[in-house]
C-alpha cells in the first residue's frame, strides 16, 4: 500500500520560505499569485497491514514524527492499495 502524507505549516504560522517563493513568482510577473505555503511530502510504502490499521497508524506516525503539531498540520491519502 502506498500512502502520501503532506505536511505544511499551520495557517496561523508565518511561512517565510513560502513568502520568498511568492515574491519570486511576482517578480516573474505571475500577478495572480496571492499566497504560497511551502510544505513537505512523504511517500510511505506499507506492507502486511489492513486498510483499517493503516488508517489508524498513518495519523499516529504523522502526529508523532513527520509533523510537529505545534507549528504544522498534515493531510494524507492512500495512493495504491495492495
Amino acid at each position: 500500500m502506498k500512502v502520501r502524507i503532506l505536511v505544511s505549516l499551520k495557517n496561523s504560522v508565518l511561512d517565510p520560505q513560502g513568502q520568498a517563493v511568492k515574491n519570486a513568482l511576482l517578480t516573474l510577473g505571475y500577478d495572480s499569485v496571492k499566497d504560497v505555503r511551502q510544505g513537505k511530502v512523504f511517500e510511505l510504502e506499507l506492507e502486511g497491514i489492513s486498510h483499517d490499521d493503516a488508517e489508524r497508524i498513518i495519523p499516529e506516525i504523522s502526529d508523532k514524527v513527520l509533523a510537529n503539531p505545534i507549528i504544522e498540520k498534515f493531510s494524507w491519502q492512500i495512493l495504491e492499495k495492495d
Partner: protein
Amino acid sequence: MKFGVVIFPGSNCDYDTLYVLKDVLKQKTLFLWHKEHDLKNVDCVILPGGFSYGDYLRSGSIAAFSPLMQEVKEFALKGGLVLGICNGFQVLLELGLLPGAMLRNKNLKFLCQFVHLRVENEATPFTNKAKKSQVLRIPIAHYDGNFFSPPDKIHEIKKNNQVVFRYSDAKGQLSEDANVNGSLESIAGLRNKEGNVMGMMPHPERASEVLLGSEDGRIIFDSIIHWLGNRGG
C-alpha cells in the same frame, strides 16, 4: 560533580563544550554517546550544538528519538539538570521538555554572529551568577532559531517566568533589529516550569575565554557549578 556532554551524529560543538568544562573550568566531564542507555551518574547533561542527523526532517527531531534521550527525559522529569545549546535547545523542544518550536530565521539566512542577551531570570540553576537585566555578549550560529509558540502557551510561559534570555542591544533595550532571527517576544533562552531544564540558542561554550572575544558564556557554566555545589552534587 560530574558533567555529561551528549554526542549525536552531526554534533559539532561537543568538543568545545567538553573543553570549557574540563580544561577551562576543571570539572569532571565525559561524553555520552546517543546510542547508550546509561547517563553514568552525571549531575548535569548538556546537549551541544551542531546538526544532529543532518537536521533531517526538522532540526533536532530525529535526535529526540535516540535511546539516550529517553534516559535524559526521565532524568529531567526527576529534576536532573539539563542544558540544551542551539541544536540541543531544538532537541529539547522536539522532546517536549521545553514548550514551543523553532521556525526558520525571519530573513531566511544562517546567522553566525555575536549578539547581546538580556538576562530575564537570574533565579535559575543556569543564571544565578548573573545579575538581573545583565547584558551578555555571546555568539549565535543557526538557521532555525526563530522561536514560536501559540498565544495561549506564550501567556503561560511568561506567567511562569520561563523566559531566561531575550535578544537585546548592548544597553539591554529590546528592538526588532536586535531580535535578529525574529523570535516571538525576542526569546533567546527558555526554562521549563520546574526550572531544571534550559535551552538557549546562543553558544556560551564559544564565549568562555577572553581570547575568544568574550567570557560572558562562563556565567552559565559557573552558575551550574555554583548551584550543584550548593546542592552538594
